[in-house]
């Protein structure tokens, strides 16, 4: 379990920063655009082949794994898109698209001459595919013939599977009891297998309601409820609790 997995409810933090901008430095747009292009050009998608040389998988899961693997102090230290820049540059080096020496040398060039223009290149089919991806998305929905294990109103116990490199189960909900508020239609897959954490293949997803007083006894505000969307693999029938 990493700090990044269990941010929800963490105490002792500063006031929030009502910063309404999406990008606080002009360079941040560039890394956002690169990330979006990588997702759109990732080869597992059912989209037309293009002239792009991008040939390895990149999804949100890869970006999230990078953030979850960070030293937690670095996670708090770096601004949002600084983390993206580090993770994405590292990915391109690790997968052999560029070398560390190339990016270091080029960084020094642009540091010395920030106005130096970008090179030209590329064909429109690449950008057409990226636009198609943004318009169509990449739905994780799958048909599901079986009856979901849980129904609205069922009391469920949240599991506590090992987190290896990635999870979609917030730490503050582990081993806690909630009530199913919604059973979403059919099933949803996840972007990758999370191994012993348990998600990846299509499975039902539920919205589960939790009482903050149960999550943080005596240490949560009154008069509110918290809900989370949880994959089937993360939930246990509540009878498991008595047997445990």
């Amino acid at each position: 379990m990493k700090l990044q997995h269990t941010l929800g409810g963490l105490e002792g933090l500063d006031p929030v920063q009502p910063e309404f901008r999406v990008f606080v430095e002009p360079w941040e747009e560039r890394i956002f655009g690169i990330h979006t292009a990588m997702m759109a050009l990732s080869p597992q998608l059912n989209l037309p082949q293009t002239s792009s040389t991008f040939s390895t998988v990149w999804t949100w899961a890869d970006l999230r794994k990078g953030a979850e693997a960070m030293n937690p102090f670095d996670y708090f230290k770096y601004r949002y898109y600084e983390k993206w820049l580090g993770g994405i540059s590292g990915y391109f080096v690790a997968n052999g698209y560029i070398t560390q020496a190339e990016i270091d040398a080029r960084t020094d060039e642009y540091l010395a001459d920030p106005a130096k223009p970008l090179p030209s290149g590329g064909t429109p089919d690449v950008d057409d595919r990226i636009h198609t991806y943004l318009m169509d998305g990449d739905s994780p929905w799958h048909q599901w013939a079986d009856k979901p294990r849980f129904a609205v109103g069922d009391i469920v116990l949240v599991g506590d599977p090992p987190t290896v490199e990635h999870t979609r189960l917030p730490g503050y909900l582990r081993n806690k009891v909630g009530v199913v508020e919604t059973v979403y239609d059919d099933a949803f897959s996840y972007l990758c297998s999370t191994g012993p954490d348990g998600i990846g293949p299509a499975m039902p997803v539920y919205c589960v309601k939790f009482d903050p007083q149960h999550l943080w006894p005596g240490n949560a505000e009154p008069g509110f409820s918290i809900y989370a969307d949880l994959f089937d693999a993360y939930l246990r029938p509540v009878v498991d609790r008595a047997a445990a």
Partner: protein
Amino acid sequence: MTDRFAYPQDREARNAARVRALEALLIEKGVITDQTVDKVMQTFATEMGPFNGAKLVARAWIDDVFKALLVTDTMAAVAQLGLPTGAAGAEGEHMRAVANTPQVHNLIICTLCSCYPWPVLGLPPYWYKDPSFRARAAREPRAVLKEFGLEVDPAKEIRTWDSSAQIRWFVVPERPDGTQGMSEDDLAKLVTPEAMMGVAVALPQAA
């Protein structure tokens, strides 16, 4: 001992140079084109953004049947409004709207990362990605909303929704008082991204 919180003096210049170096190399190696990043940003300026969400909310304010559909079958409501194709695109393939009422105030968070409904809200503002916001909104939403300048009546229930799977959430704020007779387009102008995430309410009518 290293000072883990020391930043280099030229932090932003170095970040800017590094991202430009990366973009230049990716163009040269044929990964992306010299148009890619600008075109992505153009899509978020024109086709996927809070202007779509504001239209959904404005329609919900003037049409109770549409509002009911928006909260019970969000994707059907989005399809009905004739928004651009991308209104059900990336990061919005499966969305769910929750409506504020005199009794309930809704707040959307993502404690694990920064899940956000791109097609109807565009890209997440910095406050949404702030670890302090993400941590604290789960346990003390009223205190957090107060820091945004929003005092929620203690008699009102707050519902906080943590976007931990693949559903993307947004809030239908309440229609402000004094907006009777306003056109749908003018109503849409009162709806901010913050109101559609629950850290603000829709703006009152401009004087």
